């Protein structure tokens, strides 16, 4: 350690004689000289403003005392009440979810050889701003089912189960002898029996929806015990006569035709061929009704409005989850590596399985670290601003509102300092329990 300088050593005698009497008095002066810059800045820009904001919350713009009017304004503003409700949801959901998931992932990453690599990837978002995360997730949450990554993933699963129908927009003419059933199928009003036929004419079928192989529709010819059904486009250039299959009107392939019995139960299903016809046989005596199944008209997956007003808060919390899980994993992982290995080994030797070891040994030993992560996340959630401000689009900004954002909006977008100060005080009150907890922990340690 070569830090002790030459001039320090040069004057040992004088220093020694000077130091003793001055130990009390001038030390205090020296200490304050070191503290002064920080004290002035903290005093002027944190302590004084905190007190002044409390005062402002009882005053109007021109700083006249108005009692609790500003607080009353909070309770009368639906937008601010939404902010309070949302902050409450955030605090209840986000820290617990992130800490719990972080604990599991931290334990799991310990069991593989690429611990560090995984933790770094999960931790990386912590270096990214709330604004950047907002942009990233705006892109991910894109509502268009073709362009939003999340919607494409969900859409591909949904479309596996039931994709879009052949004719999503098709309807029938009002005068047609067809009615819509309660589940969205289009059923012919009259019943059929073997040897009879049914026809259902659709309109509002787009040219591009009709497959290239579609051919001219023709009048169904019933014979024996078969029940032919034709689905056709009841429209041709120039209009045509409604309800009649005419030259130039195409059969509609790919429509799902169902035959239902008197109780409404589906007894047979077929998909129409190129001329729009199907033929049922051997289904019994009936009477039946022919209908085009609702699935033919299903629009398919249209994309979820993640950032629309109903889902915006869960969507924001998910983005915050992405941002913060790495923090939990790294802190808890740091704690795990400091756990006494022999205790865990002893538990395993005593016959505890992995889950028991985790629940009965790891978690209790990790409680202080888990607590720190939970408290840190809680404070971050209470103060959250940029992610919400950037990710929620203008239309759902009110629905996504949280206290941290509301304070900025009231005080600086709307220049209402009185109510803005009251909202700030509200936020301050919410962090006081955490402040008390910090102080208790600190005093216990020292």
């Amino acid at each position: 350690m070569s830090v002790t300088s030459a001039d320090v050593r040069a004057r040992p005698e004088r220093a020694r004689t000077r130091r003793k009497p001055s130990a009390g008095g001038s030390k205090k002066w020296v200490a304050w000289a070191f503290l002064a810059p920080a004290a002035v800045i903290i005093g002027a820009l944190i302590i004084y403003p905190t007190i002044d904001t409390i005062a402002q919350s009882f005053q109007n713009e021109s700083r006249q005392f108005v009692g609790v009017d500003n607080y009353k304004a909070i309770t009368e503003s639906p937008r601010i009440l939404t902010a309070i409700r949302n902050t409450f949801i955030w605090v209840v959901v986000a820290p617990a979810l992130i800490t719990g998931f972080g604990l599991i992932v931290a334990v799991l990453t310990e069991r593989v050889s690429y611990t560090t690599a995984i933790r770094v990837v999960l931790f990386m978002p912590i270096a990214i701003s709330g604004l950047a995360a907002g942009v990233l997730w705006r892109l991910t949450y894109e509502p268009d089912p073709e362009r939003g990554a999340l919607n494409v993933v969900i859409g591909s699963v949904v479309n596996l189960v039931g994709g879009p129908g052949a004719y999503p927009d098709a309807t029938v003419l009002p005068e047609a002898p067809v009615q819509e059933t309660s589940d969205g199928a289009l059923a012919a009003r009259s019943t059929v029996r073997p040897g009879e036929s049914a026809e259902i004419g659709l309109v509002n079928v787009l040219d591009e929806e009709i497959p290239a192989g579609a051919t001219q529709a023709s009048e169904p010819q019933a014979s024996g015990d078969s029940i032919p059904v034709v689905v056709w486009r009841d429209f041709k250039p120039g209009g045509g006569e409604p309800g009649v299959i005419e030259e130039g009107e195409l059969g509609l392939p790919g429509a799902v035709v169902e035959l239902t019995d008197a109780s409404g139960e589906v007894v047979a299903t077929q998909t129409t061929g190129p001329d729009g016809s199907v033929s049922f046989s051997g289904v019994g005596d009936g009477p039946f009704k022919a209908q085009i199944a609702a699935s033919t008209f299903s629009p398919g997956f249209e994309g979820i409005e993640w950032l629309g007003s109903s889902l915006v808060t869960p969507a924001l919390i998910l983005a915050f989850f992405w941002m913060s899980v790495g923090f939990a994993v790294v802190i808890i992982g740091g704690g795990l590596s400091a756990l006494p290995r022999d205790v865990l080994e002893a538990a395993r030797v005593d016959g505890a399985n992995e889950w028991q070891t985790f629940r009965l040994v790891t978690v209790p030993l990790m409680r202080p670290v888990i607590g720190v992560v939970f408290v840190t996340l809680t404070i971050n959630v209470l103060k959250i601003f940029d992610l919400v401000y950037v990710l929620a689009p203008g239309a759902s900004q009110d629905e996504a509102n949280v206290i941290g954002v509301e304070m900025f909006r009231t005080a600086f977008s709307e220049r209402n300092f009185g109510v803005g100060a009251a909202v700030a005080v509200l936020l301050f009150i919410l962090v006081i329990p955490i402040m008390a907890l910090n102080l208790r922990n600190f005093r216990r340690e020292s």
Partner: protein
Amino acid sequence: MAIAARTTAENRAERSPRGKRLSDTVARGPLHVFLIGLALLWLTPVVGLFVSSFRTVAAYSESGWWTALTNPRQLTLQPYLELVQNESLWTAVLNTVKISVPASLLVVMIAALAAYAFAHIEFKGRDWIFILVVALLVVPLQMALIPVARLFGLAGIFGTVTAAIVFHVAFGLPFAIFLLRNFFIGIPGDILEAARIDGASELQIFRRLMLPLGMPAIASLLIFQFIWTWNDLLVALVFAPGSSAPLNVYIRSQMRQYGTSIDIIAPGTFISMSVPLLVFFAFQRYFVQGILAGAVK
């Protein structure tokens, strides 16, 4: 993290003699799938933005970014070439540097002085004043915005880069003092006492002993503060709008025409993100140490 890696290695070493290694690997298939899947999931939004930053507005409104992976002809340098000529963007980048560099240096310097006093100089009321610092750790900065805006107005610096710097310094101080004091207090008082007996002044001890010995903590803190101020949006929105606005405020202002400005937003955000990410990857160890010290102590 180094410790974690070692214990993992030990665990494996213990198990392999039992001859379970292969079956272990097979049994752990789901674990590997889960963890690697998780990591890929975490990277996807970042990759999405990166790819998007090389696409045009037309491509954006037509298809998802992943289509560019199979059809790389969509990718173009056009958005970046246009950004190069976008003067307001470069002003914003410059403002970001002008705010975050001085703000982080000042916080560290001022906090180091105070932390030294808290850690190694006896004075009356020291513990109580430090408890005040601990209390201030959690004060939301929203609590100070209105009065400080007035104060800066009186001082004639409202709306300037200076205003943002000063505010960042103030709200960075409690954490910085807390972190450095906790580190400094671990430096043995004997060394300092020896220097005092040798006649060194407190300032000399601070400069020649405390700063070099405290370098690991100071480096962590510097990195932290830099990333924190670089990433800020709220403080700049209030105190440094208009011509003093940093990059994040500029990008945010473009968000109003999200769809049509995506060719500015995506590359702009990527620039804004890449600086803290580079710092993060370059100084990862200090960063993690800082987080651990700040959270666990």
